[in-house]
């Protein structure tokens, strides 16, 4: 029996060392919940900003470029997006460093770097493409494109972090593609993808992995 117990502990140790050294597991679920809340607030601001004008978001993106359209405050919209992103990063960083401390792990290790580069490169490319579209005045693909690129980033980052991120990534990709196909639902899908899904994913991860250590 004692031998058996040692063998089992050995196997658990092997698994945990493999995970710990190759996956970034300090990422906190709570950072997802907060990112989701910020995204919903951001989406609401954009929604009401359009409502306050003469056209709703859906009417606006469905109208053709060059048609008689009200001017949209592009830099205001970019500002809202950047604020949402920054707030999410700062909160995420705080929760993640707290979790790493509790687990006695170093936060910024080689797996964290691998995960971040896999996530950030598609994200930056998507963000840049979004800004290019915004500046040309063609709005309709901006929200779905950010979803699509974010999903691809999450998918590749999942190799170096929680496997569950892969499913979140696939959902974001699906929402992004739906948004490209059905113009006008971009803002709604964006709120689902960046808002609701983050909250659901974050809460799920928190209950699954973190409640114990808190």
């Amino acid at each position, binding site marked *: 029996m004692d031998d058996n117990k040692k063998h089992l502990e050995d196997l658990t140790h092997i698994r945990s060392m493999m995970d710990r*050294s190759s996956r970034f597991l300090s990422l906190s679920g709570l950072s997802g919940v907060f990112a989701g809340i910020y995204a919903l607030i951001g989406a609401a601001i954009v929604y009401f900003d359009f409502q306050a004008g003469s056209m709703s978001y859906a009417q606006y993106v469905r109208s053709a470029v060059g048609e008689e359209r009200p001017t949209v405050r592009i830099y205001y919209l970019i500002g809202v997006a950047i604020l949402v992103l920054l707030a999410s990063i700062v909160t995420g960083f705080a929760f993640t460093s707290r979790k790493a401390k509790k687990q006695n792990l170093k936060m910024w290790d080689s797996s964290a770097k691998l995960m971040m580069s896999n996530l950030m490169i598609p994200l930056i490319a998507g963000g840049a493409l979004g800004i290019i579209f915004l500046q040309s005045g063609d709005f309709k693909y901006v929200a779905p494109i950010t979803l699509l690129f974010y999903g691809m980033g999450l998918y590749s980052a999942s190799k170096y972090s929680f496997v569950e991120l892969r499913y979140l990534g696939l959902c974001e990709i699906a929402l992004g593609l739906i948004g490209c196909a059905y113009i006008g639902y971009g803002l709604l899908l964006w709120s689902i993808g960046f808002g609701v899904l983050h909250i659901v994913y974050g809460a799920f991860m928190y209950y699954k992995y973190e409640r114990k250590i808190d």
Partner: protein
Amino acid sequence: MKGFNQLNKAFESRVRLGVMSILMVNDWVNYKDMKETLGLTDGNLASHISSLEKLEYIEVRKQFIGKKPLTSYSATKLGKLEFKKHIDALEKLLGR
């Protein structure tokens, strides 16, 4: 030649088990990262590393980053094979 179902004595220690686990999933790992992942203090790791090196289960690479020496480790083909056998034996003993 060791029997197929036998545990490898070299992996009896938790530290060596940990070192090999880490090297199974990472190409090169430096001393500092290894120590931190395993949660060890200085001195403890070195002797285990050199015994794995003697068995030719791991390979050692010494580099200089500026003036600082950086020692990294990697599992050899033999090391990976032996470790895989050890895991199989553990699983078999547990009836999996």
